[in-house]
């Protein structure tokens, strides 16, 4: 005797999986099963009930079942069960053979579902209406080919999470209130608002973006079949656009070519020359107005000191104190630098101080803002500004404090210690030493003292180089 399985209308994912468990537990072969839905009338045959042990299905098989269950084909359940049966009876690799007739048919069904899902994602059109509480609601009417409405919910929720919307279809509806999804029965087109504030604009756009010189309705129809047109506001325009195309093209070509007015690029060239900042103040205005390229930063910390200074010091980036004060080298490392400069006989007020990165990059840890090192590409983002700055200041000697400054001045990540001492940055006399913050981080006072002495010696060396050139 045959076994009858009755499933709910539409895509009954749970019902099908339960039935499979029961059938496999009872060891019933596919030929002995009759599949039906409640509206299909009485099925002849015995039925199954009760619990059945779970069945482990390979992942690839599950990935076939879920979409195919959404298909409109009444044979879908029978085909799937046949596949499951064969895979458990001697053909475990069946799905991996795309040339098998059953696999191919199911593959085509899966493809049809994928396409239907894709088209629904693409062709749903919302209309806006204002609800009784004054908030905007978005309502759409769509007619999918298969039972895919639930399967599309994730896409629309993710995309339109902060909107209140409903998608109505003849086979079920989705409602989203910005927090919960509700799934309802078939909807009707009557609930679709009559018009929408942007629909006319969308149609204008559609009309204008079409190039009559490239008319190709075959390509259009293969992707946007006629069956979708009545729910697409822009599709109303198609017949007129197609009819008018040859005429518009002839017109374009026939119109006599205009004589160019005056092909003198002077205006454009002048505009391009004008755009580079002309002074340090101009450059600083650009930097101050630009958004930070690193996360964090309340403001840009600009360079400080006289144009034409003998020495230009380049640090890494502003820290917490600098970000608050808006001035470079005023925090703990700045104080250490001040002391070292004094000991080396360099007057801070006649020196130009700046940073490779102009914004404070940090991570928030509770109330504290922890310094985070800029990455190579972030340093390079800021490099253009630094090079412009260098061009305006024109120091005798530029001193890189630490590896970040060295990277910014050369454009390449180079080892600090091996380059310590005099260097040439593309013809500009330079000097490489450590960053004062490095001294602060050294654990024991003895090493700190040695490093500090070396730092001061470096600064003295730099001073002598600057006065020599």
């Amino acid at each position: 005797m045959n076994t009858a399985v009755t499933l709910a209308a539409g895509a009954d994912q749970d019902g099908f999986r339960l039935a499979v468990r029961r059938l496999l537990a009872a060891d019933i072969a596919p030929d002995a099963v009759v599949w039906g839905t409640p509206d299909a009338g009485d099925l002849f045959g015995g039925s199954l009930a009760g619990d059945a042990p779970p069945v482990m299905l390979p992942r690839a098989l599950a990935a076939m079942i879920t979409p195919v269950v959404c298909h409109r084909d009444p044979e879908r359940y029978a085909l799937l069960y046949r596949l499951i049966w064969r895979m458990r009876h001697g053909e475990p690799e069946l799905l991996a053979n795309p040339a098998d007739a059953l696999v191919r048919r199911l593959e085509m069904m899966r493809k049809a579902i994928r396409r239907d899902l894709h088209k629904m994602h693409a062709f749903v059109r919302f209309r806006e209406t204002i609800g009784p509480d004054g908030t905007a609601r978005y309502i759409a009417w769509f007619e999918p080919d298969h039972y895919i409405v639930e399967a599309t919910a994730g896409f629309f929720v993710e995309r339109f999470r902060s909107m209140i919307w409903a998608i109505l279809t003849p086979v079920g509806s989705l409602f989203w209130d910005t927090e919960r999804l509700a799934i309802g029965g078939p909807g009707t087109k009557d609930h679709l608002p009559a018009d929408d504030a942007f629909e006319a604009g969308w149609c204008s756009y559609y009309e204008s973006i079409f190039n009559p010189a490239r008319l190709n309705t075959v390509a259009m129809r293969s992707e946007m079949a006629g069956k979708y047109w009545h729910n697409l506001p822009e599709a109303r325009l198609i017949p007129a656009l197609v009819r008018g195309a040859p005429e518009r093209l002839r017109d374009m070509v026939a119109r006599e070519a205009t004589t160019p007015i005056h092909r003198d690029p002077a205006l454009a060239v002048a505009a391009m020359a004008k755009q580079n900042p002309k002074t340090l103040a101009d450059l600083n205005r650009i930097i101050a107005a630009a958004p930070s390229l690193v996360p964090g930063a309340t403001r840009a910390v600009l360079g400080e000191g006289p144009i034409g200074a003998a020495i230009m010091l380049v640090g890494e980036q502003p820290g917490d104190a600098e970000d608050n004060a808006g001035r470079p080298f005023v925090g703990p490392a700045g104080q250490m630098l001040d002391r070292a400069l004094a000991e080396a006989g360099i007057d801070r007020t006649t020196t130009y101080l700046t940073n490779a990165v102009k914004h404070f990059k940090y991570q928030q840890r509770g109330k504290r803002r922890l310094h985070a090192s800029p990455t190579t590409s972030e340093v390079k983002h800021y490099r253009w500004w630094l090079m412009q700055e260098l061009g305006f200041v024109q120091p005798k000697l530029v001193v890189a404090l630490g590896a970040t400054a060295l990277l910014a001045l050369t454009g390449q990540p180079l080892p600090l210690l091996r380059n310590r001492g005099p260097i040439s940055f593309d013809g500009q006399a330079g000097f490489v030493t450590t960053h004062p913050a490095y001294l602060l981080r050294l654990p024991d006072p003895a090493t700190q003292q040695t490093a500090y002495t070396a730092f001061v010696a470096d600064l003295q060396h730099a001073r002598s180089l600057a006065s020599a050139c």
Partner: protein
Amino acid sequence: MDEALDTKLRILADAAKYDASCASSGGKKRAAGKNGIGSTTGSGICHSYTPDGRCISLLKILLTNYCLFDCAYCINRRSSNTKRARFTVAEVVSLTIGFYKRNYIEGLFLSSGIIRSPDYTMEQMMLVAKTLRNEHGFAGYIHLKTIPEANPWLIEQAGLFADRLSINLELPLQKSLEDLAPEKNTATIKTAMGQMRERIIEAKEERRHFAPAGQSTQLIIGADTATDDVVLTTSASLYKNYALKRVYYSAFSPIPEASRFLPAKSPPLQREHRLYQADWLLRYYGFTVPEITEGGDASMLDLDIDPKLAWALKHRALFPVDVNTAPREMLLRVPGLGTRAVDKILAARRHMRLRLDDIARLTSGLKRLRPFLITLDHRPTRLIDRADLRQSLIAPPVQPSLFD
């Protein structure tokens, strides 16, 4: 939407329609936060198709079509008498969000004529992207057409907000660019491309956001004398040296207000089609430019047959190929077999020896395949030597010219 805005939209969409690069693909999946809007799927969605068969995925508009420059192939050039308009930053933002909420688009593709200066223009475009991201929590797709003459720091900023940046090279020959676009400069364009490439790669390594969907460019076909060989060699070097995601080919289309310097004729759509096919062979089928152009004549591709078939017909000695034993690289060279079909054949081969019927199930192009394939039950020894093979395989033209 009021009438003034509608008029602007018409002008600035019309002016943008000659740019072919509209895809919203590439990059990672992403979704907006609780109060934001939008998502990207990674592969892009076409929300509509115009009667030219082109996909509408993004709101493709210009910020303005006023332009200081004078590129002969462009309808917006300074010396054209076209109608002009200019959007404000707020208008573009409102159109993008309004269209997006109705599910018309995947995002924005913003380009612009150059007003005041390249810097000023680039900054305005960057502001649109920044406002969408920061003030509206917009997580949809943003493609900005970068202006290579703008200062590098502006391009750096644009990359923070955009998914894709592109710079149009437009004409592969430096000489043509000099003649037709006097203000443009191949070296400037390539420097900007190089800079973007470096940033994109570094940002990826550092897991930061910088144009995660990469960069692309467009070449105009048929506005100058560049041969297909020149075009494809340019593309191959762009893919290699600048790690471009896509090179788009745009058949030069007659434009209203055309310049005297350019051909007023139907756009060479078939040539554009063949170049796209050749581009695929370069990127996914292991072909080199010389191999591809060999199939044609005088440095031009054969317009009647696709470039892979053209190559195969000139190398008949390598065929037929045994579908049950040939390596992947050779199967990829069989006319009519795409990468997907080849992968299916390789999978099926592990389970069975393939017959012609099996192949028919795995691909749709059996008629074209027959002369080139050996299966268990099919061995086309004589077909391949037929002199009229080429003739018998010519497909009817994709689209008859409107001038015929």
